[in-house]
């Protein structure tokens, strides 16, 4: 399967082209099934490739480059359209296509009745194509192609319901904010070419490992790559597009803005881990700090959100912060581990919220929900599993990955970052508990607006298969099987996802420990931190208990406040508005920023355009004088030619001294 690794992106490409050509004819739901089948086919190829790699005994031979064609052959710059199959890229492919398939299935139910049904799956397949290109690329340019592709699809899908002003604006915001990150990515690429003469991962990482790069160059490349990662993975200070991206349909939020695309930055940093190892140690410090501050910041904001998807959005930003904390602590395996488990439980919860929104007739305000477990039992149970996983309750998947990140943080970065991480863990458990209480428990607040008009008129996905919209009675309902199936599968994965990387506790069989670490070892060997001798590692059992305690404390506080009502909920405006960061940015850009841009525009109009227009005017005036020579009279011309000949003759004879 390794030599047909290109099939992984080829299947979604075929789906994209087929839907592009015949989408209207296929219609609903066949275009959805076609798209899902293509992603499933990619998944099968990825599984085959996985076992092929696994069957290679020597872990250093688990590395296969498949070159399709020479893409940019320009003198010294030789870039191939080549795919790299190694443990990291195959891990990414497995969960991108696997979860992608489940979300495609969910979307068939969720997008039911949408007039642009087939177009939605067109974009989804294009997204999977770009994402697989991103992770499979053998050089930075192929990855960049995918990088831009997922950004474009993200833009299309956020503003999928572009009739809504907020959706169109959110799409633009995501696109523009991502440009800043793309700039960093491109600078890193240029630097790599300037100093190594290649943009392929093998050459760049080889130079970094072999000491062929000065620390200064490696630092610059690593920093600029991190700028790219910050944009794509929604870290401070560029996180602000992600909460707005929730304007897109919920399957999009689950696929792009939780499970796959936003983790591209973490993937990139892991892929380039030898570069990070060769860079100045301050780079990792910066990454760890950005990560932990983002995690804490977003967790505080999530505490006060009332929109069901906004909570999950800020939670995603926060969890991505954990992944960057891991990257900054040299825990690349833990970062990928958390990426995978996060993809399981966050996709689960986004789809669960999609199911809730679907059942609530496109109501997203949690204050109008409550007690939904009675009408949506399967959604509720699966969502609760996701909640336990993200809160960090063992044995659910999120506990293992978060615990490992915190362990590395304490060992590598010291107690300050560790405590910040723990506080974030408490907040995570708190806001997620708050969410499930508001949505699934307590009293039903939706009867109070028993009115079909609540389903806002601009909602495109129609609810014509519900009796309720026709007249009067508003009643939430459980979602169809095609939406529940992905929920159940993801819930199962969220429970057992931790087995891929169990820690070395005494009670866990030795064969079951550190599976992911030994699998990813050849890729991350250069950058991975070794903490086995540290005091943190000696006390890892104690630390795990501490993490569990934090999760339980968070849950307990939330129950005390929202169920027992021992204290009034603390949801200050400050947090609900995200510390006014978003407002501050838009105010700054609207005020002084706008003035600065206007000054630039003035400079452009008067000086730059002035120079250009001045040159044009000069030429025009000169031409106006010269063109009178063009009399249009043939005999005139003939006369001038004659005079010219005579003058030339005179010059030859007298000037040059002929004869």
């Amino acid at each position, binding site marked *: 399967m390794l030599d047909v690794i290109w099939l992984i992106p080829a299947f979604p490409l075929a789906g994209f082209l087929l839907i592009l050509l015949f989408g209207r004819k296929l219609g609903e739901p066949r275009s959805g099934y076609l798209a899902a089948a293509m992603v499933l086919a990619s998944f099968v190829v990825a599984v085959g490739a996985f076992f092929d790699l696994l069957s290679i005994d020597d872990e250093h031979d688990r590395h296969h480059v498949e070159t399709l064609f020479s893409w940019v052959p320009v003198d010294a710059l030789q870039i191939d359209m080549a795919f790299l199959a190694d443990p990291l890229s195959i891990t990414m492919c497995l969960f991108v296509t696997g979860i992608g398939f489940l979300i495609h299935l969910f979307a068939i139910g969720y997008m039911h009745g949408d007039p642009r049904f087939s177009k939605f799956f067109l974009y989804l397949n294009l997204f999977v194509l770009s994402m697989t290109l991103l992770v499979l690329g053998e050089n930075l340019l192929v990855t960049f192609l995918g990088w831009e592709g997922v950004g474009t699809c993200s833009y299309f899908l956020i503003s999928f319901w572009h009739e809504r002003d907020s959706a169109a604006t959110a799409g633009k915001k995501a696109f523009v904010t991502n440009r800043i990150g793309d700039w960093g990515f491109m600078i890193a690429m240029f630097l790599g070419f300037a100093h190594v003469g290649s943009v392929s991962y093998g050459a760049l990482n080889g130079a970094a490992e072999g000491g062929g790069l000065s620390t200064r160059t490696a630092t610059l490349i690593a920093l600029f790559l991190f700028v790219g990662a910050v944009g794509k993975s929604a870290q401070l200070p560029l996180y602000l597009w992600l909460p707005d991206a929730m304007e897109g349909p919920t399957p999009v939020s689950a696929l792009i803005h939780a499970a796959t695309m936003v983790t591209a930055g973490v993937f990139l940093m892991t892929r380039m881990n030898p570069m990070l190892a060769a860079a100045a140690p301050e780079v990792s410090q910066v990454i760890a700090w950005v990560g932990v501050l983002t995690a804490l910041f977003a967790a505080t904001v999530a505490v006060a959100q009332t929109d069901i998807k906004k909570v999950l959005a800020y939670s995603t930003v926060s969890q991505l912060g954990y992944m960057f904390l891991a990257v900054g602590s040299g825990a690349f395996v833990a970062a990928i581990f958390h990426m995978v488990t996060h993809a399981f439980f966050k996709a689960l919860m986004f789809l669960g919220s999609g199911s809730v929104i679907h059942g609530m007739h496109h109501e997203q305000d949690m204050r109008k929900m409550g007690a939904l477990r009675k009408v949506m039992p399967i959604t509720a149970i699966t969502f609760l599993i996701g909640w336990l996983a993200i809160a960090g309750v063992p044995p659910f998947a999120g506990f293992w990955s978060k615990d490992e990140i915190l362990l590395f943080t304490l060992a590598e970065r010291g107690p300050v970052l560790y405590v910040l991480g723990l506080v974030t863990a408490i907040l995570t458990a708190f806001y997620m508990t708050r969410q499930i209480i508001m949505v699934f428990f307590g009293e039903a607040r939706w009867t109070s607006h028993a009115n079909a008009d609540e389903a806002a008129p601009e909602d495109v996905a129609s609810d014509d298969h519900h009796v309720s919209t026709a007249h009067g009675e508003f009643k939430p309902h459980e979602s169809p099987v095609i939406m529940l199936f992905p929920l159940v599968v993801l819930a199962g994965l969220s429970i057992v996802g931790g087995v891929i990387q169990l820690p070395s506790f005494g009670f866990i069989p030795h064969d079951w420990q550190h599976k992911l670490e030994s699998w990813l070892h050849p890729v991350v060997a250069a950058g991975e931190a070794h903490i086995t001798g540290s005091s943190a590692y000696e006390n890892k059992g104690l630390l795990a208990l501490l993490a569990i305690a934090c999760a339980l404390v968070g849950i307990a506080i939330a129950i005390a406040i929202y169920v027992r009502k021992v204290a009034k909920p603390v949801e200050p405006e400050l947090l609900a508005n995200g510390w006014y960061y978003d407002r501050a940015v838009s105010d700054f850009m609207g005020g002084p920023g706008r003035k600065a841009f206007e000054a630039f525009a003035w400079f452009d109009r008067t000086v730059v355009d002035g120079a250009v227009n001045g040159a044009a005017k000069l030429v025009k005036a000169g031409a106006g004088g010269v*063109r*009178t*020579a*063009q*009399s*249009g*009279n*043939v*005999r005139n011309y*003939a*006369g001038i030619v*004659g005079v010219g000949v005579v003058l030339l003759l005179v010059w030859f004879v007298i000037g040059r001294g002929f004869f």
Partner: protein
Amino acid sequence: MSPVLAAVVPTTAYYLILSAVLFGIGATGLLVRRNPLIMFMCIELMLNAVNITFVAFATRFGDISGQTAVFFVMVVAAAEVVVGLGIIISILRRRPGATADDLAELKG
């Protein structure tokens, strides 16, 4: 042939003078006449005046390249006649009696 004429041995200068006269006639005609057809004929006159110089010098120096050049001039002139006459005829068909001075559409 009369003895007087037989006594005159034409030298290269003769041909050059003839050529210069022909060229002068052609150039003057081109400048003073307005009928496009006549102007066209004047151009032919000038071209062939030059041809005579080519041949004269080729004979004088025993070098064939002058005569070769004449062939090129004739071929180009033939091509030019085809195009030029075509244009002139189509102009005259649209505007009968037009002179070269009337055709000043390209005035700047």
